[in-house]
């Protein structure tokens, strides 16, 4: 299934998510044509079980789709919709086609089927029809809620470094479309964790594209009578870019492959740290090797580098996740350290996500 998904979605993105199209969508223009193509092919419901209207894809299958979205700078919440539908399915709710996003950073209360509170930095919040969040009841039980975006009474628009909408939405007694208990084994931070996992895959994809673009440029651009890639100073930098790309890829893939019914919290933390660090090093090297042309709007390098700079900070920076991880490690002491590392895939979600600093 994985290979098939990747082939199909790569073709779709190569046709539709051209650099000009991506640039045109920055600032909040909704990619209607691209989204219809994704929606019609059922990509946003891939992770939902067949009984609930999806394709029953595993996280490992979803990885290649989200990585491809990163590689092509896709200006739409594909990963967010996949995560939202996965969570709806886990809660026993039906998956939802159409435009859908998540509110990972939300302070929402649910009473009598109505939600109040704020959802911050909702990807494409201004554009989507619906969003999924985790709200709490008076009794303190977390609930998965599906909300109409139009039910929000306030919208504060905001854009990340890549011009992607990250909007705040305020709800006051808004009727929910559906809600259900957050299933056992998932923490209230499930969307933050899932969001971190999505960004790690997109970052890995963007770094692949960045490495291709930069290595190609170094082979073609001539100075001092030869390709700049033939100079050791350039080769050594590109080698580091390749290493960082490899590290980001494997870290992101591990996070998806080790997630199944739940999300592999520790592996996701590692993925977010490794990809965010790789994003910083990678963008810096790519710009350095490209010289001034890479600093222009015309040349598509910035479509990748600005996304790397945006995504490394979203759903927790490398520092935030490092701090959580380090606090948990120190809590376990040196005796528990190696056993923790060698069984990281089996670390419970609560162990990490509840570890707020």
């Amino acid at each position, binding site marked *: 299934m994985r290979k098939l998904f990747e082939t199909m979605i790569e073709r779709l993105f190569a046709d539709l998510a051209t650099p000009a199209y991506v640039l045109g969508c920055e600032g909040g223009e909704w990619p209607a044509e691209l989204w219809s193509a994704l929606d019609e092919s059922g990509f946003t419901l891939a992770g939902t079980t067949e009984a609930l209207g999806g394709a029953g894809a595993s996280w490992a299958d979803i990885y290649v789709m989200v990585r491809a979205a990163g590689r092509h700078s896709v200006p739409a919440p594909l990963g967010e919709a996949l995560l939202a539908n996965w969570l709806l399915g886990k809660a026993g709710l039906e998956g939802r086609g159409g435009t859908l996003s998540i509110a990972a950073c939300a302070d929402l209360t649910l009473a009598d089927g109505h939600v109040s509170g704020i959802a911050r930095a909702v990807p494409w919040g201004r554009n989507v029809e619906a969003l999924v969040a985790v709200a709490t009841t008076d009794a303190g039980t977390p609930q998965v809620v599906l909300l109409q975006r139009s039910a929000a009474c306030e919208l504060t628009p905001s854009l990340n470094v890549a011009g992607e909408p990250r909007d705040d939405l305020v709800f006051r007694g808004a009727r929910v479309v559906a809600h259900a208990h957050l299933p056992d084994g998932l923490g209230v931070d499930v969307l933050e964790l899932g969001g971190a996992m999505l960004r790690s895959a997109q970052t890995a994809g963007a770094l*692949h594209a960045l*490495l*291709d673009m930069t*290595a190609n440029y*170094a*082979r073609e651009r001539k100075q001092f009578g030869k*390709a700049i*890639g*033939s100079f*050791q100073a*350039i*080769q*050594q930098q*590109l*080698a*580091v870019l*390749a*290493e960082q*790309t*490899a*590290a980001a*890829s*494997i*870290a992101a*893939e*591990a996070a998806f*492959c*080790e997630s199944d019914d739940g999300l592999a919290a520790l*592996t996701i*933390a*590692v993925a977010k*740290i*490794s990809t965010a*660090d790789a994003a910083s090093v990678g963008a810096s090297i790519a710009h350095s090797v490209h010289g001034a042309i890479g600093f222009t709007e015309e040349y598509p390098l910035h479509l990748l580098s600005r996304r790397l700079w945006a995504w490394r900070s979203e759903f927790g920076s*490398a*520092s935030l*996740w*490092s*701090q*959580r*991880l*380090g*606090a948990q*490690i*120190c*809590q376990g*002491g*040196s005796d528990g*350290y*190696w056993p923790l*590392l*060698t069984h*990281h*895939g089996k670390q419970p979600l609560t162990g990490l996500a509840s570890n707020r*600093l």
Partner: protein
Amino acid sequence: MAISQFSYSSIPPEAEALRAEVREFIQAHLADYPPTLRAHSWMGFDAEFSKKLGARGWVGMALPKAYGGAAAGPFARYVIIEELLAAGAPVSAHWIADRQSGPLINRFGTEQQKQRYLPAICRGESYFCIGMSEPNSGSDLASIKSNAVREGDSWLLNGQKVWTTNAHHSQYMIALVRTGEKQAARHEGMSQFIVDLTLPGITIRPIRDLAGGEHFNEVFFDNVRLPAEALIGNEGKGWDQVTAELAFERSGPERFLSCMALLTALIDALGKAPDALQAREVGRLSARLLTLRNMSLSVTAQLAAGEHPAWAASCVKDLGNVFEQELPEVAQLLLDVEPRQAGGGEYARVLAYLTQMAPSFSLRGGTREILRGIIARGLELR
């Protein structure tokens, strides 16, 4: 492109099942082994310990059963060695024989050579070193001058090797030497020999390192007469044989676990309630370590599938060396504890030792610049 060689691989359950056994063994034999000795990592020499491991069947375990091995898969060996390295067990005696020389002999050796060398390797009794660098041939390995000349039924070996780790503790060296004239193609005309280090005409002199330790050596060959069966593999194909070993040599967990003793001592020294900066750095180091482990496991899977991941192995080694070299740097910034050669606490002594050892990590087994050059070639830049 080369980068797609890295795909996620997990340790299969049958290999994972060995982990508890190794931990029990380590607990039984090394419970009181101090952090200052654990810090020696895979440079820690203890022949008795190697023999105990051999008796458990954990040396040369990937070799065929007919020669004393266990025909175990590479992941089984991976679990054993990463557990030993994480514990800082003294594995230096058998390390190179287990990692490199045993597999080389098994792959290129004659039946007679396999029967002669492999069982003793598997028992943890037979130790090997690798003769590569020479005084004027370090990174430029193809420029070596030591040579063996065929004389009737034997070979006459002359020349000098340098930086040969463990030559003073080993019974054998697998030496790369010139057996033909330097050709237009500079990688031709070299062969590998199994040199019995007790033969007349061999002088071994340890070279003290900057911390006063003796790990590497100069080795002189003065008209050393080698029997015909000392040649391993094919005459003139030494370079290809050496290159085939490199993926094994460069992708293992010893390329990023050299400072494990410091990392665990640091966690102890920080205690259960670190401040935000300390927690952040411990978390970040641990994330890098886990990502390196996943990269290393990915290369192991490629080796198991019979592929030739020389490019990917170079990525693991370079990134791993950068990581293990940064560890003492980060540690000394996190705690106001001065490193101590003697006196002070255990953490201070581990920090002092590994601060001094760190420069060697990116020299042994291929320098940073050589590795990055290999990576650049994989990117079709050269």
